[in-house]
């Protein structure tokens, strides 16, 4: 019974959102506002239950881990943002999170985003057993990466053999990449619609399995 009512409510709101395709209307606006409130309400509840209660409140109430008062006070300083005279205090928790996360991510980002990618870019052009499309692909891979990097290098004019020709090849490679992304984007958007159709036809109307 609970599930049936739930699915009918879900279908109602699904159709309310789809009604926007014809014309904006109060039902759509209601659903639009509801989703904002519900998502933040859900976030607050989950954050309190999963994070604050077991990690902060329960250890403090148990009389152990008094050091947790420090992050608690830092966190509560966020409230000062709403009091203009002492709003500057809210910078402390932001600074704590920003500085430390920037620091901790620096060496790992260097490794993941730069070093490993440079390593991957130095791929062998030919290894025994490769077919022609793989060899051609590796050539495109190495030269294409270099050409695309040249295209994005704006400190020098794109003229001459290296920068001029390189950036011209680079833009073609980039267009192929963006074409692939566009194709996948279309696929992705359609997939989201497919999910909703499956919900309406399957879970709600039981026309399909």
């Amino acid at each position, binding site marked *: 019974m609970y599930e049936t009512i739930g699915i009918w409510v879900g279908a109602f709101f699904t159709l309310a959102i789809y009604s926007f*395709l*014809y014309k904006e209307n109060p039902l759509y606006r209601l659903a639009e506002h509801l989703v904002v409130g519900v*998502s933040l309400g*859900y*976030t607050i509840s*989950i*954050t309190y*239950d*999963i*994070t604050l209660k*077991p*990690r902060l409140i329960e250890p403090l109430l148990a009389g152990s881990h008094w050091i947790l008062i420090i992050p608690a006070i830092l966190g509560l300083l966020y409230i000062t943002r709403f009091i203009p005279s002492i709003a500057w205090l809210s910078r402390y928790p932001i600074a704590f*999170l920003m500085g430390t*996360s920037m620091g*901790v*991510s620096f060496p*790992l*980002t260097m*490794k*993941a*985003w730069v070093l*490993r*990618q440079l*390593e*991957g870019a130095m*791929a062998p052009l030919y290894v025994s057993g490769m077919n022609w499309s793989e060899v051609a692909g590796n050539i495109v*891979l190495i030269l294409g990466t270099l050409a695309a990097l040249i295209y994005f290098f704006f400190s020098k004019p794109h003229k001459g053999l290296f920068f001029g020709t390189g950036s011209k090849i680079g833009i073609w490679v980039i267009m192929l*990449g963006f074409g*692939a*992304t566009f194709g*996948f*984007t*279309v*696929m*992705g*958007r*359609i*997939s*989201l*619609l*497919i*999910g*909703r*159709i*499956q919900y309406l*036809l399957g879970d709600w109307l039981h*026309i*399909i*399995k």
Partner: protein
Amino acid sequence: MLNIDRRWIFLAIGVVSIVPFLIGIGMPVSTTVEVENIFDYVNELGKDDAIFISFDYAPGTQAENTPMAIAVMRHALHNDVSVFLTANQPLGHGMAIGALHYVTDPAIPDFYESVSFEDWSALRDAGIVDKDELVSAWESEGNVLPEGCSGWIFEGRDYALLGYAPVFNLVILGMTNSIEAQYPQDAHGNSTGEMPMLRDHKSLREVDLALSCSGSGACVWWITYAREKIGMPVAFGVTAVMATDYYPYIQSGQIIGQMGGLRGAAEYEVLLYENGVTVTTGKAFTGMDVQSAAHLLIIFLIIMGNIAFFAGGFHKKTALKGRG
């Protein structure tokens, strides 16, 4: 023709998305090496291994991400691999709960029967934590596996719903040292220290794979903070919009494989079905017929739009405007 009311186009896409479901063609889906790598990797895992499935997506992209997460979860549970469920955002936490419901729903084929942490506490206290011994002991107490059920799954041994934690990138980093320190309790309030799967897999160093099902760039955190710090294998299950961006990670070996969009989920479902893990494919495979029809319509619209544009001489008018 270019001034056609766009609501006709909306109607066309709506019709094209509904009709293939009613006809139910079931065109075959071939698999790619990017998805096969994930399947083969999980297939090699067994009851002493564990994986993380991170629900790093919101309900907006659940049509693509949920089938991926469910497919891998079913595969892992079939092989008695312990599954940790996490989320990088509160709405992802809800998605993890929904996925668990789906996998344990008796109305859906290939379902599992869940035993809560509390219910098997006596067996746990008696030191019975090995999966085969646990199932025998549980059934000898008079518990009968429902008809059509794929097997028992025990909370704390087969799965743990760890859930959401804020600043999730740092939580991943913290889990490289200790999972229990980051999650002293799971989402159901059970102490993680008492869970056999946490005793066997104390940190991410002892976990065999992290699958990040993501609708945003959060999946990259698993590479940055887990793969690069401790060499943990990572796989991606991402939306199609993002899938093309992560091919460099596949080539560099930073991820073992990737499921991209509904197609990726459909490929994994096909692999599960062909290898006898599931008795049927799932929602992603069913949706591929609609995907075919919709893609043909979009290509048709692109061609017609360009024909109308060039035939109507609009490209010349735009050029003239530019000079003026």
